[in-house]
C-alpha cells in the first residue's frame, strides 16, 4: 500500500497548505512553517503547492493579488509610520 500512504501524506500536506492559506501566508512562509512544525521537507511543500496552484488557478491568482495588495498596504503603513516618527523627532528638536 505504498500508494495510499503517499496519497494520504500528500493529502495531509495539502491540508496543511490550505491551513496556511487561511492564514494568508506566502508560499515561502508556508514552506518554512511546515518544515518547522510538521517536519515536512520544503521541497515537498513546494511541489504540492505548485500542483495545487495548477489545479486551482483562479484561486491562487486571486490569492496572489490579495497578497500583493496587502504587501502594498503594509508598505504604505510603514512609510507613514516612518514619516510620523521623523516628524515627531523633528518636533522634539525644535523644542530645544
Amino acid at each position: 500500500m505504498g500508494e495510499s500512504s503517499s496519497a494520504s501524506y500528500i493529502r495531509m500536506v495539502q491540508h496543511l497548505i490550505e491551513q496556511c492559506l487561511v492564514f494568508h501566508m506566502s508560499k515561502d512562509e508556508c514552506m518554512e512553517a511546515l518544515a518547522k512544525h510538521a517536519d515536512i521537507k520544503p521541497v515537498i511543500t513546494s511541489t504540492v503547492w505548485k500542483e495545487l496552484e495548477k489545479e486551482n488557478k483562479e484561486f491562487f491568482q486571486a490569492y496572489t493579488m490579495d497578497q500583493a495588495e496587502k504587501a502594498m498596504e503594509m508598505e504604505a503603513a510603514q512609510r507613514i509610520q516612518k514619516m510620523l516618527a521623523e516628524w515627531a523627532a523633528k518636533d522634539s528638536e525644535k523644542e530645544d
Partner: protein
Amino acid sequence: MLAVESLRGSNGDDRDGTLGNFPVSDDFGDEAFLEDVDFGDLFMGIDDGDVLPDLELDPAEIFAAFSVGEEGSGKATAVEGAEGALGGDGATRDVVVLEKEMGEEEKGVKSHREEVVGATTSEDSMVMPSELRSESPDGDKGRKPSSPSATRGSQGKRKSKVDWTPELHRRFVQAVEQLGIDKAVPSRILELMGIDCLTRHNIASHLQKYRSHRKHLLAREAEAASWTRRRQMYPKKDVNPWLAPTIGFPPPPPPPAVRPFRPLHVWGHPTAEAHMWLRRPVPPSPSLPWAPQPPLPPPPDPSYWSHLYQRGGREGWVPHAMTQGTPCFPHPLPAARFPAPPPVPGIVPQPMYRPIPPPVTDHSSSQLQLDAHPSTESIDAAIGDVLAKPWLPLPLGLKSPSVDGVLVELQKRGVPKVPPACG
C-alpha cells in the same frame, strides 16, 4: 449605450470624436484594445452560453459591427470567440476560451482583461471600462431589443434572466465585498464584475437575495459564536457535544461583538471567493475520512450544522446548497485541542474546527498584528491540529492535484519516496 455603439462603429478611427463619454484619451495603445476587443470578445463569449441562456448571440450582427472599423485581429478573435463559445457549457469556460484566443494575439489585452474581469482594485483599468459597462448593460440588455445598431446587444429577447453560475456568483460576491455589503450598489457591482451580460436589475435582485441570506447566516453565526464562547467559559460542563446544541441555540442573546467575522473586508477576496466557489467542487471524496467520525455523535440537525459550520455556510447560498450533502464535522474539538484559545481571533473565520474564533476582548490589538502576520503559536496550533486529526475536512477544499502527478514532480526533484524516510 451610445458610447458603446459608437465605439463599435468607429473603433480604430475617431474615438474621441464620437465618444464623448470617455474620459480616456485617444491613445490607441493598449487601452484601445481593451475597449475594442475586450468587450466585444468578452461579451460574446459570456453572452453566449450559460450566463444568459436567453440571449442569443447573433454572429452576423457582431461581425457586421466589427467589420465597420475593427482591427482585423480583433475581428478574427471575435469570430472565433463567437463560434467557439456558442454552445459552450460554462461561463468560465467561455471566458477561458476567450482568454485563450485573445491571448494568442494580444497578450497585453489579455492581462488587461483579466484584471478587468477579475475586478481588481486597479483603478486605471476600471475607469474606462466602468464607463462603458455602466452604459452598455442598460442599452443592451434587453431594453433595446430591436435596435440593429445595438451591436453589442445581439440579444433580441427582453428577458434578462440570468443564470447565476458559481463562477458568476463568485464574482458577484467578490464585487460586493470589495464595495462593502452596505455600499454595494448594483451599478457599481456591475462595473466591478465587468460582465456586460448583466443588467442592474439582475444584480439588484440577486443582491437582495444575497443580503437577506447573509443576514440569516450572520444571525446564526452569532448564535454559534456566542454558544462557543460560552462553552469555553464553562469548560467542563459543556464539552459534551450532545448537550451543546441544545444549550446553545434556543436562548442566545448574541454577544455584543457580533463581528461579521466572516465576509466583509477582513479577508478580502480569495477567502471569500475561495470558499464560495471552491466549495462546490468539494466532492464526495472527503467523505472517506469523514465516514469514521467515531467520536462524533450525529448532531441533532445535520443540515443545520453542516450549513453553519462549513465555512459559515456562505456557500450554502450558492444555488445548490451543497452543504446538504456534506456531513457535519467534528465540532467540539476546541476545548480538547487548544488549552488557551490562540490569539487568532477574528482572523480565523473559515476553518470550522476552530470555532474558537471571535474572542473579542483583548485581542483587538493582536488582531491587527495578526492581520499582518499570523503568530507562530497559532500556526503551530493549526498545524498540530491537522496532523493530529487527519479526518478533518480541508479548510478550503481546494481541488486536489493528482497523486501521481505530485509523485512524479517530487521524483524529478529528488524525492523518491513519500512520506520520506527521514523527515
